[in-house]
């Protein structure tokens, strides 16, 4: 039973991060119908910038309060990701808004390749380790170990997600976002500045992604120029699992995927009598996805889209 709770905690931590990244995918998808393949790389840039800032501050001002240090690094990272994402949308997606559906997908892939290699040129091929500026206490909870950092990850993600849901559901800006995702043309006619709303969506998603990147780097104590790809892929899977375009679905999908992965990895050996090992963790995640989609073709919380009349 201890192992089970341990895996549940690990799954929740992983799932919170997936959910944060998945929100970025799902918001953009909801408004533009575009798989923003570059989002994973934005998350990576977030982690790398934060890490570089912390390393710089640690090198030049070793006396600085670690909390201030992390706050500066996080702000730098979030702002640079927002700016980056704004320009990605402006330069690579906006000109193609009326183009065939797959054209922006290819530019997104191009951006993804570009950012990954740019990061490799700037930060090198090695794994970057996070300097130890904090020491986290480990607590016992229902027989499982949980560190303060893990609690922090879960709580911060929950706060950010709630904030986002409040903005989207109750603010004027959120109403404009929802209107735009219903119909860009009609929303435009009713006085919504479509371009501004779309830019805003990208920027918000990038901010959440940057935070997710920092949390992942902190949790595993490493960052790497290629970390965004797999993370982005998993988050996208989570968004689809929950029903893409649906914010609550992204959160649910993220948490579910995290839990499935960690519990699956812990028990897959027992289930299959030792035939399949924990390397099959991803197989497990994708199989669940396929099975869910077979029975609910638009995801768990996705609306049933009726055929065009």
């Amino acid at each position, binding site marked *: 039973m201890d192992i089970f709770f341990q895996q549940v905690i690990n799954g929740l931590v992983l799932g919170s991060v997936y959910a944060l990244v998945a929100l970025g995918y799902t918001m953009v*998808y909801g408004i533009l119908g575009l*798989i923003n393949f570059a989002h994973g790389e934005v998350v990576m840039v977030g982690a790398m910038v934060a890490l570089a800032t912390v390393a710089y501050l640690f090198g030049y001002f070793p006396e600085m309060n670690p909390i201030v240090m992390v706050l500066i690094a996080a702000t730098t990272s979030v702002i640079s990701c927002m700016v980056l994402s704004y320009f990605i949308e402006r330069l*690579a997606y906006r*000109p*193609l808004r009326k*183009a*065939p559906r*797959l*054209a*922006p*997908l*290819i*530019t997104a*892939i*191009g*951006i*993804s*390749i*570009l950012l*990954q*290699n*740019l990061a*490799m*040129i700037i930060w090198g*091929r090695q794994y970057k380790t996070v300097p130890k500026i904090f020491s986290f206490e480990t607590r016992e909870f229902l027989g499982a170990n949980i560190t303060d950092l893990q609690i922090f990850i879960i709580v911060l993600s929950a706060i950010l997600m709630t904030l986002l849901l409040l903005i989207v559901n109750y603010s004027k800006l959120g109403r404009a976002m929802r209107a735009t995702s219903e119909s860009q043309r009609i929303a435009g006619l009713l006085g919504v500045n479509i371009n501004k709303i779309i830019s805003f969506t990208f920027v918000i998603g990038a901010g959440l992604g940057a935070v997710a990147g920092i949390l992942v780097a902190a949790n595993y104590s490493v960052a790497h120029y290629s970390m965004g790809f797999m993370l982005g*892929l998993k988050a*996208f*899977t989570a968004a*689809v699992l929950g029903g*893409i375009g649906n914010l609550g679905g992204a959160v649910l999908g993220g948490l579910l995927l995290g839990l499935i992965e960690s519990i699956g990895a812990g028990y897959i050996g027992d289930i299959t009598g*030792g*035939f*399949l*090992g924990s*390397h*099959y963790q*991803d*197989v497990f995640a*994708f*199989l669940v*996805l*396929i099975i869910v*989609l*077979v029975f609910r*073709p*638009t*995801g768990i919380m996705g609306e049933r*889209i009726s*055929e*065009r009349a």
Partner: protein
Amino acid sequence: MSIISKGIEKIRSNKRILFIGYVLLGIALVSLPFLLSNTVGRTWVRILDFALIYAMLALGLNIVVGFAGLLDLGYIAFYAVGAYAWALLASPQFGLHLPFWAILPIGAGVAAIFGILLGAPTLRLRGDYLAIVTLGFGEIIRIFLNNLDHPVNVTNGPIGINKIDPIVIAGADLTRTHEILGIQFSGAHIYYYVLVLLLMITVLICVRLENSRLGRAWIAVREDELAAQAMGINTRNVKLLAFALGATFGGVAGGLFASLQGFVSPESFVLLESIMVLCMVVLGGMGHIFGVLLGALLLTTLPEILRSTASPIQESLFGAVYIDPEALRMLLFGLALILVMLVRPTGLWPGTTRKQLGNKG
């Protein structure tokens, strides 16, 4: 534009000019490897071989994505299945050494079965839901290939399978150098001719498919599935056939890849490869066979050209190599993808929609 298309029409209608054109194309295709190995080096013949294999692969994906409009992000799985089928049936791994004309249909058949395996549960899915499932399918295949070295060693895990038999025709090993009529033909050179021949057959099949009842059904499903169904098209069978036929081409290409390379490992079948093949299809001109061919040839040769120029250009400009040439080459590649799509959103050489819908039918 209209002047050019009128010119093309004129050439098309004139049988003599058309014939001369085909003869010139034939001479160019035959002499290309001689030209390359004498100017830029022999490795380029090999690069050309891989470009032809990718062209075959892209044509297969074009059936699924371009004709039937089903976004497939795990297409490389079929390539992997074909490659591993060849590797297992013609290598010391199991001590099997079947001749290539036996493996080719087996590989194609196995790939087709996998295509149906992927297609059947995903028939109800649309657009991006389908994309993510195909992506997952591709990853599942790769993970199995990577881990099936225990408890029973089937695929030899991440190390891959070595010493795969080459294609042997009439007792002659096609990867060796042969002398015919006093001219030396390297292995890559002979493979080139085999691949050109196979690619021509592939193109022929694709052209015939596109203009067939099935091809028109695919295009109808792509344009409007509901309307297609209302017109009496069995969308289930039509979609399954798209997956199966696309997979067949992938399987054949995979087998050829395994025999040319003499070695397969799961590393060749990562998601990025699927994405690359998709880029070839979209960048060339989705649904247009010759556009896709152009896309495949460009996207396979461009990284190689960049590879051979990335360091020398830096040296001549700055006197030293400052930027990792490998990273620089991929960076420029990514940039090229973005720029091409921004300038030509429908691809480099798109087919016209009206022509696809067909006045011939």
